[in-house]
């Protein structure tokens, strides 16, 4: 039932301790590829390899079976050294049907390995994938190693004893495939057995069938190795810092970071959200953490989500809301109110392809202008961008801190890639983040001309922040609102000079947010070329710069977390390079901000395909800039 190598006889997988391998699982959106990828990720992490993943799935929940637009893929790059991109081109492509093969084959490395389920290569499925002839037979796969197996049939055989219907039995295909992948990379099956038993605790026969399928896939590998075409790959664990590790996605990290941030401030958290891809997962995670004094509220719309969070902040909780580009657009007016009333608020934007509905499940960094400039009036607001799933945790804590210290809304930018991707994460010690609890104002904070105590709700501290006064506090009744306020009393004021004073105060407060100096990630402070990135482009920029430096090129990597205000030393730092390139997944937004702020000749490297940069693309950009 298993046919073998139809194409290139030279296997490209170095069998003994390769530095890194990229595997892409692709199938129908109902085939469980994200689940397969997720579990393979976990086993990779448990084996001690570093990794980065890239889930790539359609916006449709159950697109018609077998179609090209219904293909769902999960890519993982794992290695025995530091890995920080999901990899450029896969070494191994697992294609569960013709459509998955068609969509993903162009990305496969020349001479890479393709594993296909021949059971799905029927006339009907070939038609759906618009294949006129069978690619398994017409030479399409000639440049590659091919392992063509009837996975469907072997799965049915493996789960026969459990008496499942054919449809249910075939659902175990992904576990058969995972079993084979586990064998290929010499992985322990036990964590998977445990996971399946837990997942199907109430359906033991389904658990057993999946375990049987997994074991059968694994056994197939062992047998096939003896027969010749397939060889097991051994990869050493990465030497990492000692400590406890887990895998984490960006969405999980946002939720954990917010919980940690609020707890470090000794504040209850209120999270107002409205379902939107790819931000919904944050609300899902937080809804399960009620014991941490978290209230979650699924609002009727994006506006209600942010306004309820502002209302909660006014009442003394840490208000948080999250969304993605189109939802953030709806929240704009309310952000202005939070800026005007100077209440703390954290807004998380998991960016996706835009404009409008754009590409809901694809990644992009095109909301930078929206974050920094996207409100009516002079409405400055701190903006922080996370570089990776693990980095989100720290950024979320920092966003909470700035929001409360400076009584301001803060936007935290992640993106679809960070939200869904996972990476190994060294579990931090919460004690290392310890910090003093928030102090609310409980007594009048000034005296009038006669020496009577009075309340001045807009009297600022040395940071420019006004006091936080909870309704319910005796004697401190006052009114706030979106109309311009008197610089001290907070009462409505249409006085022209007062508006100048307040506009300046809001500006100075935000531009004065205390930030660490910008550091250089790789390379020197000064030289021929700097690549300046922000957000999830960290991985490809980092690797491209490392490789270029290995070739002796004078290039450095600067990665900016604080997009607004920018770190105080960034302007001087950039002036130390002959050339500045800004790779970003938009049409050149950060490049424009840098030019505006520093009059530096920043040049854009842009990409808006919904896919992350590849290392090769950025290496090419470096070579061109230095060429």
């Amino acid at each position, binding site marked *: 039932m298993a046919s073998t190598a139809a194409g290139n006889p030279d296997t490209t997988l170095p069998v003994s301790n390769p530095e890194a391998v990229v595997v892409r699982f692709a199938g129908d959106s109902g085939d469980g590829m994200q689940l397969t990828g997720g579990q393979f990720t*976990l086993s990779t*992490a*448990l084996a*001690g390899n570093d990794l980065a993943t890239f889930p790539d799935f359609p916006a449709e929940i159950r697109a018609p079976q077998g179609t090209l637009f219904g293909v769902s893929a999960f890519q993982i790059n794992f290695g025995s050294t530091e890995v920080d991109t999901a990899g450029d081109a896969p070494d191994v492509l697992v294609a569960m049907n013709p459509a998955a093969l068609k969509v993903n084959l162009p990305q496969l490395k020349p001479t890479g390995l393709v594993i296909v389920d021949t059971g799905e290569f029927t006339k009907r499925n070939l038609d759906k994938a618009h294949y006129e002839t069978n690619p398994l037979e017409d030479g399409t796969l000639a440049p590659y190693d091919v392992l063509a197996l009837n996975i469907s049939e072997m799965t049915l055989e493996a789960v026969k004893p459990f008496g499942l219907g054919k449809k249910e039995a075939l659902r175990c295909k992904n576990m058969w495939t995972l079993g084979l992948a586990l064998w290929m990379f010499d992985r322990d099956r036990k964590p998977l057995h445990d996971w399946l038993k837990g997942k199907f605790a109430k359906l033991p026969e389904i658990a057993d069938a999946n375990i049987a399928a997994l074991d059968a896939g694994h056994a197939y590998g062992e047998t096939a190795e003896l027969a010749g075409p397939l060889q097991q790959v051994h990869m050493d664990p990465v030497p*990492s*810092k*000692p*400590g*406890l*590790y*887990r*895998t984490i996605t960006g969405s999980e990290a946002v939720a954990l970071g917010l*919980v*940690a941030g609020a*707890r470090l401030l000794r504040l209850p958290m*209120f999270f107002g959200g409205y379902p939107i891809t790819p931000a919904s997962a944050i609300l899902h995670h937080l809804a399960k*953490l*009620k*014991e*941490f*004094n978290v*209230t979650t*509220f699924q*609002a*009727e*719309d994006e*506006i*209600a989500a942010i*306004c*309820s969070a*502002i*209302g*909660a902040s*006014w*009442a*003394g*909780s840490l*208000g948080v809301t999250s969304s993605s580009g189109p939802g953030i657009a709806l929240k704009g*007016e*309310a952000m202005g*109110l939070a800026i005007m009333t100077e209440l703390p608020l954290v807004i998380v934007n998991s960016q996706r392809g835009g404009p409008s509905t754009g590409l809901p499940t694809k990644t992009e960094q095109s909301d930078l202008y929206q974050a920094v400039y996207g409100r009516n009036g002079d409405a400055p607001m701190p903006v922080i961008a996370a570089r990776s799933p693990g980095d989100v945790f720290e950024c979320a804590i920092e966003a909470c801190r700035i929001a409360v210290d400076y009584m301001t809304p803060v936007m935290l930018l992640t993106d679809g890639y960070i939200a869904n991707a996972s990476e190994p994460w060294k*579990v*931090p*010690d*919460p004690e290392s983040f310890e910090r003093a609890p928030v102090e609310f104002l409980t007594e009048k904070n000034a005296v009038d001309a006669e020496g009577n105590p009075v309340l001045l709700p807009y009297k600022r501290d040395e940071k420019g922040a006004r006091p936080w006064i*909870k*309704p*319910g*506090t*005796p*004697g*401190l*009744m*006052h*009114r*706030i*609102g*979106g109309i311009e306020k008197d610089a001290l009393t907070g*009462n*409505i004021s249409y006085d022209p000079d007062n508006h100048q004073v307040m506009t300046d105060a809001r500006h100075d407060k935000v531009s004065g947010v205390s930030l660490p100096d910008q550091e250089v990630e790789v390379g020197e402070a000064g030289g021929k070329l700097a690549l300046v990135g922000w957000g999830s482009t960290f991985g490809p920029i980092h690797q491209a710069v490392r490789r270029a430096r290995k070739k002796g090129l004078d290039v450095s990597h600067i990665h900016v977390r604080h997009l607004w205000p920018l770190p105080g030393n960034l302007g001087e730092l950039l002036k130390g390079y002959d050339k500045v390139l800004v790779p970003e997944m938009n049409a050149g937004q950060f490049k424009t901000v840098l030019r505006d702020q520093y009059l530096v000749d920043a040049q854009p490297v842009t990409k808006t395909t919904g896919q992350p940069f590849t290392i090769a693309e950025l290496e090419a950009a470096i070579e061109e800039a230095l060429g």
Partner: protein
Amino acid sequence: MNAPTKIETTLKDWETDQEVRWCPGCGDYAILKAVQRTLPQIGADPANTVFISGIGCSSRFPYYIESYGFHTIHGRAPTFATGAKLANPDLDVWIVTGDGDGMSIGGNHTMHLLRRNLDCQIMLFNNEIYGLTKGQYSPTSRVGTTSPTTPAGSIDRPAQPCAFALGSGARFVARGFDVSKNLPDVLIAAHAHKGAAFIEIFQNCIVYNKDVFDDFAAPKGAEDRQLWLEHGQPMLFGSEKTGGVKGITLNHVTCGLEVVDVVDGDWEAANVLVHDKANRLIAHMLVEMPFGPFPMALGVLYDDPRPSYETEVVAENARLAAGKEPNLAALLAKGQTWTVE
């Protein structure tokens, strides 16, 4: 509702030092006074009372009440109120909105606030016009309203706030008008209701829609044109002096309300309905009862409490948190982990 301890205050205690800036003669003045009279009567605590408003003439209201106030953005007051009440369920929350704010730009939030049944009082000042933007017709303007945006008269049919509220799941619906002496009683009943209490208050915009409610609100002939509902009392209006006492009865064939004459005070013989504030079916008829053939139904039209939203959220949060240790270190290390030596 929700003042844990009753506080002694006077009307003066509820006045702020801010100059009231409504047009002279605006109905808002009367409503402000009615509220400032009501608050001492219910024993409200200024420190625990919050007034939250949207945008429009009515939404300036919080600046004139000596409590905590939040003048927010257009149409969104219910959402800020929801966040504030969930964050601190002890707050006594009043929402001030208008026909444009609450029925047009913020209609969605009004609906969801009511269906969730957040414990608060929602005062919708209905003047059937956009006042602060200088007189455009509003979602409650009657057909044919001439305004800068409808020079030949408006075409679209008006929304009916109380019918909308009841349709959205409100458990308390009441009506009053600015200069009515009964308004404080309506507000007291609204405050006593645990849950979302919706009060439509007809308000005279003397600049852009002057005296538009005079056909029922003018003192002359008021008895014949106003039906003040009182729980357990027959639905009677009019008087012998003005052409006879009348009542509202239910026609069992059409399943509709009808006006009947009451002879010699014998309302039972005329089958006049007795107001049962918990009767949702009759409430639906009362909110839709057309003025003209019928009097204007005023007072507490419907009042039948259900558990309020914030109470249930607090209970649910406690249930989900029960027995779980809020251990951050354990949370961070959740799931499958591995140790690097």
